């Protein structure tokens, strides 16, 4: 289960000391980041593509009601069933009743963050269904009884040795650290399950309004197997997954796969347009598409609407210096990293998630990597403001900033403040630095020295001498003046 968002600081501290995790994260940074950068550059004009992709999402979200209706109408004509889920409970109930009517015992699942969001697996398992993850990373996580720590690489926090031991323990195969052998072990176990499954549940990468198609992007073909072998296919999507036209798909696929894994295209791109038709050789008899709101309408109506543009590519996680250091589990809920720090409070409320928007230096690496240019740092600022205005900040912090504002509005007081700081620091300052600060700033000096206030501030120097200095008359040419 998820760690919960309230204990963020403790989780982060533990993660920093977790050596296997740190090694795994180091690999992530070293591999994913340069791969994405090189792939995007190879596209010629990545900026233009990102602008185009953003425009597609802007349009889709601005007229979401129209496109959802069109999407549903087209699905209806194709003979698929459309279900609308207001919240997570309703989505779970809908999927449960589909499984019941199908008389299912075994359910295979393609990777789906939406399913994680509604905690679908534990729910179905409680009701007695055998639920199997078929994405290799998700399968590993399921065997380990954990939750994903990355949007596209769910088991990224595990080292090869940990996974080898897990496969050996859970499946009984001889221990091996050879990647191909490990993959074969998982493949053998999963293939049998595909054939037994009555229902396949997948997510949706894109839902195309003008054709009623759903698009799955995978590298293992498990999405295609999950959606074609079982008699019933259930596709679960957040309602923001819409793109208006089939013509929009090429640019969206391009930015998605290049940003996610640095691939020109993923190994499998599956487009599903309706259930099996009379003359089709394969495909499910029934196709159910569950369109889920679960808080998205509220985001749509808020100043943080662009959070709905997210393609779940994970690029912002890979470049984030916070994520790189603490991994995904510390964030405590389904969506980790920078986009998680925005989505989690939007989905679950600031009550429990107030740490997440604050735990950022606002460095903006996420926005730079985002294939649809989501302005994550500015949304984090929005959330901090909201959080303060609803009273989340400590009384101490509020008083501190009010005092600060009062001093900063009165240059005389500010100057006095500097003087007092200078006096106060005198016994402790050594060659212009302080080894220890008093609370609430003491945490700075746990690992760093702090600069002492200078003996003479700039404004002192200005008033003493600088204001009387003159610009050089021959300086206007720039260049050297020796």
């Amino acid at each position, binding site marked *: 289960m998820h760690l919960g968002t309230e204990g963020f600081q403790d989780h982060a501290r533990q993660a920093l000391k977790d050596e296997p995790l740190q090694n795994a994260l180091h690999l992530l940074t070293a591999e994913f980041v340069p791969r994405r950068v090189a792939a995007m550059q190879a596209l010629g004009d990545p900026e233009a593509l990102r602008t185009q992709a953003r425009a597609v999402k802007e349009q889709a979200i601005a007229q979401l009601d129209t496109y959802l209706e069109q999407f549903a109408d087209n699905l209806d004509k194709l003979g698929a069933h459309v279900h609308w889920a207001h919240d997570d409970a309703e989505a779970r109930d809908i999927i449960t009743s589909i499984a019941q009517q199908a008389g299912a015992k075994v359910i295979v699942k393609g990777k789906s963050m939406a399913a994680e969001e509604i905690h679908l697996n534990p729910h179905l398992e409680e009701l007695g269904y055998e639920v199997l993850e078929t994405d290799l990373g998700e399968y590993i996580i399921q065997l380990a009884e954990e939750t994903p720590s990355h949007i596209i690489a769910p088991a990224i926090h595990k080292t090869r040795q940990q996974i080898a031991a897990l496969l050996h323990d859970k499946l009984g195969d001889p221990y091996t650290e050879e990647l191909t052998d490990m993959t074969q072990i998982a493949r053998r176990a999963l293939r049998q399950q595909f054939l037994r499954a009555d229902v396949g549940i997948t997510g949706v990468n894109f839902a195309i309004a003008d054709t009623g198609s759903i698009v799955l992007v995978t590298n293992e073909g498990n999405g295609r197997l999950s959606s074609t072998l079982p008699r019933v296919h259930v596709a679960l999507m957040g309602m923001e997954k819409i793109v208006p036209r089939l013509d929009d798909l090429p640019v969206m696929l391009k930015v998605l796969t290049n940003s996610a894994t640095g691939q020109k295209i993923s190994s499998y791109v599956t487009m599903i347009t309706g259930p099996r038709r009379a003359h089709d050789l394969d495909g499910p008899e029934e196709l159910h598409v569950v369109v889920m709101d679960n808080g998205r309408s509220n985001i749509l109506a808020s100043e943080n609407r662009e959070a709905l543009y997210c393609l779940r590519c994970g690029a912002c996680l890979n470049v984030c210096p916070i994520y790189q250091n603490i991994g995904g589990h510390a964030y405590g809920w389904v969506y980790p990293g920078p986009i998680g720090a925005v989505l989690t409070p939007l989905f679950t409320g600031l009550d429990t998630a107030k740490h997440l928007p604050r735990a950022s230096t606002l460095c903006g690496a996420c926005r730079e990597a985002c294939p649809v240019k989501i302005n994550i740092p500015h949304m984090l600022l929005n959330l901090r403001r909201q959080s303060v205005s609803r009273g989340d900040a400590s009384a101490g912090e509020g008083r501190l900033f009010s005092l600060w504002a009062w001093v900063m509005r009165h240059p005389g007081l500010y100057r006095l403040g500097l003087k007092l700081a200078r006096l106060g620091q005198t016994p402790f300052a050594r060659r212009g*630095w302080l080894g220890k600060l008093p609370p609430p700033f003491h945490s700075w000096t746990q690992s760093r020295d702090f600069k002492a206030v200078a003996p003479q*501030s700039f404004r002192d120097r200005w008033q003493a001498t600088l204001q009387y200095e003159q610009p050089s008359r021959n300086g206007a040419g720039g*260049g050297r003046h020796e």
Partner: protein
Amino acid sequence: MTEPTGRRRPTRVALFITCLGDAFYPQVGEATVRLLHRLGIAVDFPLGQTCCAQPAFNAGFHDQARLVAQRNLTLFADYEYVVVPSGSCTAMIRLFYPDLFAEAPQLHQQAESLAARTYELSEFLLNIVGTDDVGAAFAGKVAYHASCHLQRELGVTEAPRRLISRVAGVEACDAEMSEQCCGFGGTFAVKYPEISSAMLEKKIASLQRAGADTLVSCDAGCLMHIAGRLRRQGMDVRVMHVAELLNAGHNAEEPRHAPGN
């Protein structure tokens, strides 16, 4: 934003020194003034100035931030150019002042006006003054740390690098993580000290790998953070603000070769 504009060369600017610059790095302001003087530009220093209000703004305390920011709208109203030796504080004024006063039309107009007249030092030199060679000399292996707000909010990436590379005697050594955040983030460094320190460790390791003996940046916040750790570790890497480097060879008090000074 790399080509000099067709505007006439500025002859007078106002200096916004920033609170960190004023209290902790007065030599940065002094170097800025003398550098601008050498280029024939007169400098005014409105004495009523204090802080840009970013600490409160970033923490979510917008009411308090507004009170402090509003004073700057008036203080700098009459200057054609406001020069700031900080990417972070420039971003606060240029990007967030208009947001802060979005609800008050007259103040908003003043904020937009100030935003359009405010420049970070390196972009001012390259884009407005139109020079990338300010006649400085400094011997050292210099790594540049691109501060986050400068590169990603203001989009200033080339100006500091070009100015640094034209300083006589500088051997530019590119740290592979020059664009990575140092973990300062204002109050972040105090609220999340462990994560902040882990980020800083990686930054410093990349400096070591690059073999730099000097680190240069455009923001005193980053410099203070990085230098604080270098000093704690007793590492012999000089830390300089870009203004100090660009005035090197002309400074009254040249930076000493002391750890984290």
